[in-house]
């Protein structure tokens, strides 16, 4: 994938690429920290049919939506040659037992034999989180394990 990075003096940076269909799609990172999602027009690729302003939080949410399946697919592919092991993603609901607590608190590996390999938060992937990693509501937890282990992990995350 060839992403073009274009400085916009006085405004920020534009990063975009062409999709298979030939549409230009990308993001403008404004200096003041907000983002803009841009999608080019079909008949005039120089101009944009949409430019949607996004706050840092909204951009993170969008990245989460788009990025999580990709990450899970990648991990699943890596584990696919091992029999009986699968990868699953669990959203951590705000206010759930481990919202605001650490990975160590869950003792997930000892209790379920499944292991947490990554946490997706606001579009960023925190790979191999350490035991002192603190969860927050809205995190997406990527867990690897056997079917039984994953069920136990789901139960653990939901009920403590």
């Amino acid at each position, binding site marked *: 994938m060839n992403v073009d990075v274009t*400085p916009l003096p*006085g405004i920020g940076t534009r990063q975009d690429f062409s999709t298979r269909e030939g549409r230009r799609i990308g993001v403008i990172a404004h200096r003041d920290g907000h983002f803009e999602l841009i999608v080019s027009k079909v008949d005039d690729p*120089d101009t944009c049919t949409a430019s949607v302003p996004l706050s840092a939080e909204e951009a993170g949410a969008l990245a989460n939506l788009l990025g999580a399946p990709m990450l899970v697919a990648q991990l699943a592919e890596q584990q696919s040659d091992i029999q009986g092991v699968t990868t699953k993603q669990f959203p951590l609901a705000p206010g759930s037992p481990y919202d605001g607590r650490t990975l160590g608190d869950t003792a997930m590996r000892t209790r379920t034999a499944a292991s947490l390999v990554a946490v997706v938060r606001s579009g960023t992937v925190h790979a191999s989180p350490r035991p002192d990693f603190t969860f927050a509501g809205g995190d997406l937890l990527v867990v690897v394990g056997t079917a039984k282990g994953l069920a136990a992990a789901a139960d653990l995350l939901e009920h403590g």
Partner: protein
Amino acid sequence: MEHTAVSLIELGAVFFGLGMLGKLAWKVGISPIPLYLIGGLVFGSGGLLPLDGIDEFAQLSSEIGVILLLLLLGLEYSADELFTGLRRSWTAGLVDLVLNGLPGAACALILGWGPVGALAMAGVTYISSSGIIAKVLGELGRLGNRETPVVLSVLVFEDLVMAVYLPILTAVLAGATLIGGLTAVGVSLVVITIVLVIALRFGRIVSAIVDSPDPEVFLLRVLGAALLVAGVAAQLQVSAAVGAFLLGIAISGSTAENATRMLEPLRDLFAALFFVVFGLNTDPSTIPPVLVAAVLLAVVTTLTKVVTGWWAAARQGIGRMGRARAGAALVARGEFSIVIAGLAVAAGAVAHELAALATAYVLLMAIIGPLTARFVEPLATALRRRQPA
């Protein structure tokens, strides 16, 4: 006490009136600058509201307005961006300079204002309004367009040209001879090089001097530094505006961003007063005689900016519609044209009609600019349908 009360009422009325005008302007999609100028013209001619009590304050405020306009222009681009901009767009920048400076200079010479008037008018017609253009591009959702970096790099180049042009203009206005003028050019080039090198190498130190985590301290330091540098520059006959501009370039990184965010409202306030005072000092009765010249100049320099943008965008391999958009985006002139005219008139070295011509010209261009940017696409489509290519 009564005097203060009257002054407060007058000032309040002026600000409130400007606020109404500003709202009206953006509602119909034009820049508020022409309306501020008209506001000044109306107040000044002994018309609705004679501003006796506050003219001293207004005069000083308008000076501060110019300093803030130039300081924020300098803050807008980092030294890095200026250098890359210069490397990438110097050909387009030169085309821009020649095509848009010449009509102003020619007009001044035809009207018999001599070489000094020509130099000033060249600046008035050359410099696009980066404020109006950035706002219009943002509003029209064109920041993601392919031609937008081309437009911005032309603006960056204009910014650099201002750094050289303003000291020269100041020197020439102060009545320097040809040799004196050349010395001024040399000195200003050396000073600008030094400032740019300092900004590139030691920008952090300059930033650290004014920076502070406390917003109040930061605001006072930046504003204080700007006024100090501007004042010293004015004492050295380099023009207060240039000093503030160079300080703006020297401040970099996150300090520059914070300073911009903090000073923007202040600039809007004082710049509005600057436009009003410029209008106040322009006798409305001098405008009708120069109106024909202003209209002709507006037509010619609208076309020359469109050609500039078209040419610059074509060099970057952008399609016909994109080229038209780039050209139309560059048309707006505004605050800096008035700054240049203000410098020229304040020095008293040019014909008084220059203020009238600059006022009429900016009135036209600040209205025409956003409108051409907005309506270039339907217009181009209509033209293309008429004569199928």
